[in-house]
């Protein structure tokens, strides 16, 4: 790279000026650039190795607003002292603000220079000490007159005065000043005088229209392409929805049809249709949100309700003995926030006609649980549900679908353990192995729907593979976060991206 060609106008000017003087002031004067522009140009030149920069920060003691005035007019205690020179004086005769008088009283009484003569009105008189002070400048006054100056030049007595004045209102300030020492490097020195030759910077439409073959190639300013550029902030979908779309795509690719549906469901669909006995603990107030008003929803067609009732009470014609209790229709009417999207699978089963079989269905949607929120739990959470309805599917196929799903999610090792759900037999818990952390984690439940679920809903018994896999746990692992609440974070400065 020809370094000279990479220099823009300000760098050229500054480099030229540097040949004369390396004082910042001189550079500013001779280039007619602003301080900011000069410093920026110096930085660029330094990036290119033409200039050596040594930045240092020095702390300076400067005058504050009051300090500037006091340096001119004297400190308030001096003014007060002077007023008392010819005998006792009352407070309102002293040309100081209320606040300054208070401060002065403090300072002068501290030095036993005055006594309070009277209180109504407040008046003062000088003491012998006070008189002695009249013609003597205090350390603070001497110090004040030396300002501004560097903090490191302060002697021990001056440090005391410094502390003293710092504690008062805006007399002095401590400020940090950056100073820059500039020096041409050998490479910089080697560059001869730079001509005023005009290089093309931004490619404007004029540049383009006037560009011809005659224009020598060297007229473009070159860039230091490795130097840093300002960052951009773009907009994105929320990481949760990015992950959901990724997972939806997996099931769509495998030929599954998407299910959608209500979040408020009758207990009938959320529980009873899934053969969950009415006294099962999951139906407790502790676990499920119940709707106050409208408390109840409508039950579906009578025939279906009767089948479900019989399946619970005696097993109906499913070959089961049922739960052996009296099923209560009123309990089934209660509206709840769905506790699992398996309710959509149940509704789908109930809606299928023979032409829909074989069928494969999935959903990725929100569910609700009466929980307080913490690192691992939320009252709203996602579940990835699916069913496969076909006369010939087997337990091995169930493991096959789950294995394929997790393989597509990037987990090579999947294992299955026995589990329990009221609505499946061969109930399975799927676990995946995290290589980096060397451990298995549970990602969700699955199984084959019990005949007590399938036959009442579908009308005939048929193997149905079903699963309800957790979503958040997998996202947490992938994003390497340990608190579930972070997935739901809406901090616009901390956007995350899902990519597998």
């Amino acid at each position, binding site marked *: 790279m020809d370094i000279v060609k990479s220099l823009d106008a300000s760098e050229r000017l500054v480099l030229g000026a540097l040949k004369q003087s390396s004082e910042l002031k001189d550079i500013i004067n001779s280039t007619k650039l602003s301080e900011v522009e000069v410093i920026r140009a110096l930085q660029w030149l330094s990036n290119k190795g033409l200039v050596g920069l040594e930045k240092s920060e020095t702390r300076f003691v400067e005058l504050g607003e009051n300090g500037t005035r006091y340096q001119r007019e004297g400190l308030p205690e001096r003014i007060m002292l002077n007023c008392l020179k010819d005998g006792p004086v009352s407070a309102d005769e002293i040309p100081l603000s209320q606040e300054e008088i208070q401060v002065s009283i403090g300072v002068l009484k501290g030095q036993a220079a005055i006594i309070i003569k009277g209180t109504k009105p407040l008046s003062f008189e000088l003491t012998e000490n006070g008189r002695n002070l009249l013609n003597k400048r205090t350390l603070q006054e001497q110090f004040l007159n030396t300002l501004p100056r560097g903090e490191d030049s302060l002697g021990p007595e001056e440090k005391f005065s410094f502390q003293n004045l710092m504690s008062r209102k805006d007399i002095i300030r401590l400020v940090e000043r950056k100073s820059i020492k500039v020096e041409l490097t050998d490479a910089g020195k080697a560059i001869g005088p730079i001509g005023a030759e005009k290089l093309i910077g931004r490619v404007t439409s004029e540049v383009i229209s006037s560009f011809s073959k005659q224009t020598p190639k060297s007229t473009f300013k070159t860039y230091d392409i490795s130097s840093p550029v300002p960052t951009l902030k773009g907009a994105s979908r*929320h990481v949760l929805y990015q992950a959901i779309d990724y997972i939806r795509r997996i099931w*769509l690719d495998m030929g*599954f049809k998407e299910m959608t549906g209500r979040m408020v469901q009758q207990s009938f669909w959320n529980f009873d249709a899934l053969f969950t006995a009415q006294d099962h603990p999951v139906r407790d107030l502790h676990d499920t949100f119940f709707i106050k008003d409208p408390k109840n929803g409508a039950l579906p067609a009578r025939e279906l309700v009767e089948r479900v009732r019989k399946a619970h009470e005696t*097993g109906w014609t499913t070959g089961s003995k049922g739960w*052996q209790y009296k099923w209560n229709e009123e309990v089934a009417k209660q509206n709840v926030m769905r506790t699992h999207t398996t309710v959509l699978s149940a509704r789908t089963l109930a809606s299928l006609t023979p032409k829909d079989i*074989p069928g494969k269905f999935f959903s990725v949607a929100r569910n609700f649980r009466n929980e*307080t929120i913490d690192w691992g739990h939320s009252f709203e959470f996602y579940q990835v549900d699916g069913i496969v309805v076909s006369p010939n599917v087997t337990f091995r196929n169930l493991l096959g679908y789950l294995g394929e799903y997790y393989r597509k999610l990037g987990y090579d090792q999947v294992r299955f353990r026995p589990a329990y759900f009221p609505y499946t037999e061969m109930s*399975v818990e799927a676990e995946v192995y995290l290589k980096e952390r060397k451990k298995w984690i549970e990602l969700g439940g699955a199984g084959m729907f019990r005949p007590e679920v399938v036959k009442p809903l579908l009308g005939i018994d048929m193997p149905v593979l079903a699963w309800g896999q957790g979503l958040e746990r997998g996202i947490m692992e992938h994003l390497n976060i340990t608190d579930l609440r972070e997935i739901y974070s809406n901090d616009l400065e901390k956007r995350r991206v899902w990519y597998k």
Partner: protein
Amino acid sequence: MPTVALNYGTVKSGIGKKLSDDELKERIAMLGTDLESLSKESIVVEVFPNRPDLLAEFGFIRALRSFIGVEKGLREYSVKSSGLSVNIKPSVSKVRPYTACAIVKGLKLTDEKIEQIIQLQEKLHVTHCRNRSKAAIGIYPSEKIKYPITFCAEDPKGVSFVPLGDTKPMNGLQILSRHKTGRDFGHLLEGKEKFPFFIDAKGDVLSMPPIINSELTGKVTTSTKEVFIECSGFDLDFLKELLNIIICELADMGGQIFSMSLNYPDKKIVTPNLKPVAMKLDEAYVQKLLGQKVNIKECLERMGFSYSNGTVLIPSYRVDVLHPMDIVEDIAIAHGYENFEPELPVISTIGEEARIERFRKKIAELLVGLELNEVTTFSVSNERIQNTMMGQKEKIIEFSNSKSSEYSALRQSIIPSMMEVLQLNAKNEYPQRIFEMGAVFYKDKNEETGVREDLVLGVALCGKNEDFTRARQIIEHLLKSFNLGLKLEEITDTRFIPGRVGKLLVGGKQIGIIGEIHPTVLVNFRLEMPVAVFEINLGTLQAQLK
């Protein structure tokens, strides 16, 4: 799900085969119980609610012994007659109609065994007995009882005894108010005129189910050699099964089971009945469901069943078998889930995205193109955020039982959710432009649940130059992308600045609302920048597309 703590040494020696800790862990998990922890003191497992027989040490050892092949097949328990009886008075019929009872003799109890018995009783109470509402279990030192026992219901004020763990006699009502267990479970007897009691032939009260035993006759100690067990409740079959779980545990501890005659007013029965239940099993059905050949007989015996010629004998403590499918699961567990090879079937179906989801994705794509950031908020909210903070009074749908006042109702608009996100980002750089598509809820008699749920899009713009015009540009851009035109109609709405709020109309239908948020609302959310928003119903909009 209940967890139970088992003694490590007892389990290790009880299973009758040397297993390393890792093997033990793995076998326990594959039996279908979640292993919580394993140390030299204890093994803590989580037991699924369908297997109450695994809630104690010996039941657990029994299952594990079979599973690892040490003692396969059906366990036989012999029952001798005790010749003793329990008389059930007609008075219990209205308050607690049934009981099933037995006696177990020859026990050599240690503190550890007593602890296991109490743990079993308590875990069964909590889970299988649904916090004692379905049934309750009483276990008594038989030596202190004079038979026959009477099960009767009496006026609680007229029956006094010293409740277990106390020193002073109290009557039935006093127990409900003064004794801890009485207070915990008193609701189960609330409003009953008469309370149930077990009373022996001397007139000593054994217990007042389902609340508490008496100190005098209801405390099992290491000197107890024989125990009387009763299960009382509302469903006789359920009680018999429950009784079987407990006495099999006691028999495995070394006890000998004795039956009792129960003299009901209308019948006389003998309990317990430990006869296994027979169930037909179609081998072809098993193979078809599993999709793999397995040794059915071997598998069943490893799960404690016996099998011959298509008939399975189910031990009496296995109360979870409702359907042959439950047996198929046990076969699969015995075969080992790890020994089934996953197989993807060839089932040709066409994948299909839900129409509304396709629409939703398109909208998100367009909005991200306008540099709006998508956020994610909850559908569950509360009255304060939905109404108070927004300066309005709309009827919202509340939960009847939320654990937290923060999450106690359903949102009817997504705008408050957007405002909460902006509040959260108040320290961040402006402008902030956000959107989300989510559900809102309101009452509607025409819906099957009485609740209408709509998918809406909320857009909020916040920053010193964000205003009505910008918000309107965005909605117009969206609509133009779908070849739709927009009409606006001014309305009044207390959430917005008057004169800067309107209805959004597409094809004569209202699809939503747009406006600049009123400063009083901004102050409520502690925002110091103006906010312009719109909320549109995606279902209604999608319906306008054709």
